[in-house]
């Protein structure tokens, strides 16, 4: 094909050169010549006509001469002669013009030769251009080819990339599966560990049993010795926490009585469930025991200079912690009902105080700080600047503190870490009035001023359930809500004097108890789950049960 | 080779045979070789009437032929009424059409060529109607392919078709050249004696 086009191009070039040489230079020339020739012939024709006219006029003049119009005819003749002269002049002019035309043709011929030379020069230029063109075309072809090659390589790389990506996805899938397997294995491992622990516990129990049996034997032997026994000391030493199998929802007021001379701010069962304490605006803490349908006073703890806002038993029920509006917290021993510690340092009323460990206490105050106290050194060991008034707080595992604040936030603190920053915050819709931990320490019950209870799942750090009810109004900034010991129920008092009990799993009101005539401030569920005690802004405390 | 056409070799042998017969009956055909090709040539004299021809021509031609074949020039009609013409016929092979072609010239006494329109008007009456519409595609002046000189030519483009028809209709083998010449010859004053037909 290449040679084909070569000779075709050669032929075309030859033909074009032929035409440029043979015809194009002459087109104009010949056209001009033909035109001039036409003009010349028409002039010639005219000339002949004029000659004829002259002859005719001459004849006329002669004839008129003969006729005798001498003078006139002479004049006419003269005129005619002049005319003739003019015409002859014209004729000469024409001839001159023709000469000029001929000269023009010669000039044009010279011009033509010049043009021909120019054309030859152009021809050589064109042929060199054509050559350049050919080489450029070839190089273009080569470049195109290389582009195509590169494109092919690119495509190949893309394909490889895709294949690798697929392999990567597959590996990722495998990795995910392996992780699942891993977590499964860890779980199984944990279960195994738990079993081991159970077995260990059983062994311990056996060991203790054996020791008790031996002790019993010893006691029997000792009894044989008839030693007099002081019965009063038994309950104090033999501390056994109450165990709740299933909480029952109280249905009626078992016992209603005036506990304080004024508002009752706080009630709290001890861990055994045998006593409960109440604190009021009358600056007193009273201990009560329910017995045969009547609540009997078992003593009064005094020493506070203002109303008691919060109560907490130590883990072994030996100590009672009360927070007070007089900016201080105090600790009494239950057995001898004596004031043991007064923890002062806050610059606002203390709204809540809790045991952190046996030897440490944490208190939250209206002065927007939390303080940790050491009971051995009887001093504040840490001040946490929370940034907002603390309405309630709870403790976890002896180190973590959760505090509920006026600015609608719940803050989480780790006492081992730096004091100033919370490790976590949760923002709710209303300001916090109380916090309560469920017995498994996984759920946190919060009471807020927007008249609802929120249950926060601590493992998820988010609200898992919201409890509300028609008519439920949170009466004051320190209204307290509690879980039942089995976490099935939550109870809280309303500003209208009703006590609301919700079923947590269904998130519905289970029961509304009506007995109080004033806003219910606080309540406390007996650790065994059988009864509930609540207090109001009047003087009354009510003990509820379903029997 | 299409029907009705012949190859160069066939033409050569046909011409040779034809001339052989011509020699026997003294028909004046002879062979000429030019530019390495062979063709067949015949020259003859004939007298024709210049005016008042239309009806008489064919008869006149026949009588001319007789005169010619007898070589009896003295029997010519009155010179004032007629003129003597020299006819020169060439039968040449045409490779393009693969057929024989008849070229001829008619000369007047003074050696000039008879003009084409006179040749046309000399044609027999029954050809005239055909000529009227097709004279420019039937009989024209052409360059002789072997001599390069102007000759009148009977166009060869229908020869093959015509001969194909003749060959397909005749039961026995025919003399191709004689058959063709006897068909086209009379149009231009050439007569072919029947001797060529029988003595194949």
């Amino acid at each position, binding site marked *: 094909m290449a040679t084909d086009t070569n000779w075709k191009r050669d*032929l075309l070039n030859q033909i074009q050169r032929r035409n440029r040489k043979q015809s194009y230079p002459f087109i104009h020339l010949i056209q001009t010549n033909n035109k001039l020739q036409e003009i010349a012939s028409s002039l010639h024709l005219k000339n002949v006509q004029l000659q004829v006219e002259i002859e005719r006029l001459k004849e006329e003049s002669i004839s008129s001469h003969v006729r005798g119009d001498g003078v006139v005819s002479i004049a006419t003749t003269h005129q005619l002669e002049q005319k003739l002269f003019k015409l002859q002049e014209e004729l000469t002019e024409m001839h001159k013009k023709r000469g000029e035309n001929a000269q023009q043709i010669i000039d044009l011929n010279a011009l033509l030769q010049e043009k021909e030379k120019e054309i030859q020069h152009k021809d050589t230029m064109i042929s060199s251009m054509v050559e350049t063109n050919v080489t450029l075309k070839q190089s273009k072809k080569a470049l195109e080819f290389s582009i195509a090659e590169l494109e092919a390589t690119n495509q190949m790389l893309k394909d490889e990339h895709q294949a690798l990506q697929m392999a990567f996805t597959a590996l990722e899938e495998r990795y995910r599966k392996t992780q699942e397997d891993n977590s499964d294995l860890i779980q199984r491992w944990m279960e195994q560990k738990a079993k081991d622990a159970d077995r260990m516990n059983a062994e311990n129990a056996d060991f203790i049993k054996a020791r008790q049996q031996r002790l019993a034997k010893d006691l029997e032997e000792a009894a044989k010795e008839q030693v007099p026994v002081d019965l009063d000391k038994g309950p104090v030493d033999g501390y056994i926490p109450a165990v709740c199998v299933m909480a029952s929802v109280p249905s009626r007021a078992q016992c209603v009585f005036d506990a304080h001379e004024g508002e009752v701010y706080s009630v709290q069962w001890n861990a055994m469930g045998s006593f409960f304490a109440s604190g009021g605006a009358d600056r007193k803490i009273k201990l009560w025991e329910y017995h045969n349908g009547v609540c009997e006073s078992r003593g009064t703890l005094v020493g506070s200079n203002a109303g008691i806002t919060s109560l907490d038993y130590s883990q072994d029920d030996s100590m009672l912690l009360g927070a007070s509006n007089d900016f201080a917290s105090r600790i009494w021993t239950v057995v001898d009902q004596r004031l043991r510690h007064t923890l002062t340092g806050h610059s606002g009323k203390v709204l809540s105080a809790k045991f952190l460990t046996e030897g440490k206490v944490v208190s939250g105050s209206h002065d927007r700080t939390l303080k940790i106290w050491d009971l051995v050194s009887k001093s504040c060991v840490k001040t946490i600047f929370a940034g907002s008034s603390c309405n309630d707080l709870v403790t976890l595992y002896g180190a973590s503190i959760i505090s509920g604040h006026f600015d609608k936030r719940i803050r989480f603190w780790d006492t081992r870490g730096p004091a100033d920053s919370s490790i976590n915050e949760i923002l709710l819709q209303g300001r916090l009035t109380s916090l309560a931990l469920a017995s498994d320490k996984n759920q946190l019950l919060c009471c807020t001023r927007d008249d609802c209870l929120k249950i926060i799942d601590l493992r998820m750090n988010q609200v898992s359930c919201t409890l509300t009810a028609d008519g439920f109004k949170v009466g004051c900034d320190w209204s307290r809500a509690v879980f039942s010991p089995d976490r099935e129920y939550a109870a809280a008092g309303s500003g209208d004097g009703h006590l609301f009990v919700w079923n947590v799993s269904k998130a519905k009101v289970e029961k509304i108890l009506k007995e109080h005539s004033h806003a219910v401030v606080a309540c406390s569920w007996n650790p065994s789950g059988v009864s509930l005690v609540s207090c109001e802004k009047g003087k009354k405390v009510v003990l509820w049960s379903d029997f | 080779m299409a029907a009705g056409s012949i190859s160069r070799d066939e033409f050569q042998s046909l011409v040779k045979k034809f001339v052989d017969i011509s020699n026997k009956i003294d028909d004046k055909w002879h062979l000429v070789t030019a530019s390495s090709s062979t063709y067949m040539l015949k020259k003859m004299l004939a007298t024709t009437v210049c005016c008042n021809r239309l009806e008489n021509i064919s008869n006149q031609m026949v009588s001319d032929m007789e005169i010619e074949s007898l070589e009896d020039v003295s029997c010519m009609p009155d010179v004032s009424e007629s003129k003597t013409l020299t006819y020169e016929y060439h039968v040449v092979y045409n490779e*393009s*059409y693969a057929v024989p072609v008849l070229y001829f010239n008619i000369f007047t006494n003074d050696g000039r060529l008879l003009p084409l329109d006179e040749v046309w008007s000399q044609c027999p009456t029954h050809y005239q109607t055909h000529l009227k519409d097709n004279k420019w*595609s039937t009989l*024209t*002046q052409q360059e002789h392919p072997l001599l390069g000189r*102007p000759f009148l030519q009977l166009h060869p483009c229908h020869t093959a078709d015509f001969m194909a028809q003749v060959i397909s209709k005749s039961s026995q083998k025919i003399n191709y050249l004689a058959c063709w010449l006897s068909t086209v010859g009379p149009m231009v004053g050439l007569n072919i004696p029947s001797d060529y037909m029988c003595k194949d």
Partner: protein
Amino acid sequence: MADDREILRELWDGKIPVSFQLAQEEIYTVEQPDPFFLLVPRLTYFPLVTDKVYRHMVKHVDPDHGEMWLEFDNQPLKWHYPIGVLYDLYGYQSELPWTLTVHFKNFPEDELLHCPSKEAVESHFMSVVKEADALKHRGQAINNMQKKDHKALWTGLMNDKFDQFWSVNKKLMENSGEDAFKSVPFRIYQMDQIPVQKLFKPVDDNGENLTLKNLLSIALPDLEEKGILSRYRVVTQGIEPPLDVPVGWMSEHLSYPDNFLHICLVSRGHSES
């Protein structure tokens, strides 16, 4: 194919400037007639373009004149050859314009055909086209055409209408499949010699395209021994095609309107002197 069409177009546009001069001995008037200039297409015939020349010259000759004829360098020009052939054969590389002598007397009867009218030219042209088609297609293509196609072919040439001419001529140039050329119509001219015309198939028995060189060696058997290629230029359409051009293609594209390839052998010595 655009190239091919461009070649056809350029060929069609080929023209030669001609200066017509009345033969001195035939001037009848006192006044010398001016030479007459024309730019004549290569592909046409002289009788189609010389009407004006006739009108211009006839004023200056004996009123009792004969048919007009042309002569170059003592060589009467045959009107039935395309003008391009005449120029390539006799005037190749002579000075332009090509100077021809116009005669009205002594018509060379034994050399030139009479041209009584344009009909004679048409008849001659059509008979050559017919012969060419007889060679190429056994006459099939031309016989399948209608009368008006024949007329269009002729008027296309006469009026210099390229598109009209080729709309018909392309059927005659059909060279594929069943319509492939049986033979290539060509004539080879040399000065003072009878033109050579022979049967020539454009493709050999193996289906290979035969070239111009093959054509020359078959048409002129004494090509080698006479050393023709060294002494003569091979000219057609005013150009010298390479000898390896396939003849089939040449026939399709370099033929004159009469469908013949007219190839002239022009003496090198002659042109150089």
